[in-house]
C-alpha cells in the first residue's frame, strides 16, 4: 500500500478513484519518467472481485493529477513546461498510449513481446496468422518533421486486430492521432474481457 499522503492526494484529485481503491485491495507502482522533472507516474491496480481496474495518476509529492486522458497528461505537461527532445518521444508516446488508448488496446513493439494465444504454435491456421502478424509488427518509429514536431508510427493490438498507428507529437506533448489502419484481423491473441 502506498503512503497515506499519496492516497489522500489521489482521493482529493479524484474522489471516485479514492473510494474505489480504499474499498478494495490495491497495488501501487510509482516510477520516474524520463521526460518529467518533478512528476512521477503512479499506476494503481485495484482488484475488484470481477477483474482488475487500473487507475493512472502523475504525482509530484504535492499534487496528484489523473492522467488517464489526454487532457490530464496535458495538465501535467503544462506544470512541467514540457519540451520533448527526440529521444524522449518514444517513452512519452508509450506513456501516453498506455494511459489513453482504452482497456482493450496495447502497443506491441516486437513479435517476441506479443501475448500469443497458447494454441498458436499447435494449430496450422493459427500459426499462419501468427507468422503473418509478426511480419507486420514494427517498433515505435520517431521522425522529426520540418515544423519542429515528431511523426510517430507504431503497432498496436485491439482485441484480435493488429493496428498501424500514426501520430504527430509536438514538443509540448500535444498529440494528434490519425485513424488507425487495420492491418490484420483475427490474430491469435486472447480477447481482453470487458
Amino acid at each position: 500500500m502506498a503512503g497515506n499522503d499519496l492516497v489522500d492526494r489521489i482521493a482529493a484529485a479524484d474522489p471516485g478513484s479514492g473510494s474505489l481503491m480504499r474499498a478494495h485491495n490495491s497495488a501501487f507502482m510509482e516510477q520516474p519518467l524520463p521526460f518529467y522533472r518533478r512528476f512521477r507516474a503512479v499506476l494503481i491496480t485495484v482488484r475488484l472481485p470481477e477483474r482488475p481496474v487500473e487507475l493512472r495518476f502523475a504525482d509530484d509529492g504535492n499534487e496528484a493529477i489523473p492522467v488517464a486522458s489526454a487532457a490530464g497528461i496535458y495538465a501535467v505537461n503544462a506544470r512541467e513546461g514540457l519540451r520533448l527532445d527526440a529521444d524522449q518521444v518514444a517513452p512519452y508516446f508509450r506513456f501516453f498510449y498506455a494511459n489513453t488508448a482504452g482497456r482493450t488496446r496495447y502497443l506491441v513493439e516486437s513479435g517476441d513481446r506479443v501475448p500469443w494465444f497458447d494454441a498458436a504454435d499447435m494449430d496450422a491456421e493459427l500459426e499462419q496468422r501468427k507468422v503473418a502478424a509478426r511480419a507486420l509488427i514494427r517498433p515505435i518509429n520517431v521522425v522529426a518533421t520540418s515544423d519542429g514536431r515528431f511523426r510517430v508510427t507504431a503497432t498496436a493490438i485491439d482485441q484480435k486486430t493488429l493496428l498501424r498507428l500514426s501520430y504527430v507529437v509536438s514538443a509540448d506533448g500535444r498529440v494528434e492521432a490519425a485513424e488507425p489502419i487495420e492491418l490484420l484481423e483475427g490474430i491469435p491473441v486472447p480477447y481482453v474481457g470487458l
Partner: protein
Amino acid sequence: MLANSQTGKDAVKYLDDHHIAIVTGPAAGGSYWDSANNQMVIGNDQNAEQAALTVAHETNHAHYDKDGLAANVVNDTKDNYVNGRINEEAEGTVKSIQAKNEMVAGGKPTAAKFPLEDEYNKAHDDAVAKYNHDHPNAPAADAEAAGKQAGQDRVVAGFKNGSREVVSSVPKTDAAGNVINGPDGKPIHENYTDYYTRDWNNNHPAPAAGP
C-alpha cells in the same frame, strides 16, 4: 438503444429499480461495477453501441452483487469460488451478446462486438440445428433453449483455464507504459481463472508450518 432488446430493457429496469447511476470513467480503466458507490462506470472510449452492450454486462454484475448471488471469497471453497466467478462473468458476457442479437433481430444493425460473440453464436446455431434434427416435432422454444445453453457453455469454456481465450487485462505494463515480461520472457497477462484463484488464495493463506 437498449430499448430495442428485451435483455436490454430488463437491464435498464434493474438499474432504475435499484437507483444505480451510470457514469463515464477513464478509458484505461474500462467499464466496471462500482459497488462502493452504487454506480456503473463506463469507459469513455466506448461509443453508444459498445456502451449499450457493456451496460447489459455490468448490470449482471450488479445483480449478482446486490442480490447475494456472487461467489464469496471467504466462505466458498476455492473451486466453488473460481467457478462461481467465471460463471458470473460468462453470464454477463452472454447477456451482452444476446442484447446485441435481439437488437439486430429487431432491425437495429449493431457493429459493436463482444468477446466470444462469434463463438457463442456458432455454438448456439449448431446446437439448435442438432436439436431440430434430433427432435423434429419439438417446439422452437426447446431448440432455442438448447442453443442458449450451448452458447453459454462455450463462453464459460472460453473463460476457463487452459484455453486462455480471454484474459482479465491487457499485458501488464509498469507505470510508464513499458510492457513487463514474466520469468518465461513473455508478457504477463492473467486469465480469469488465475485472477480469481489468486484472490481466493490471498484470503486463505496457508497455515504456518509447525515446529
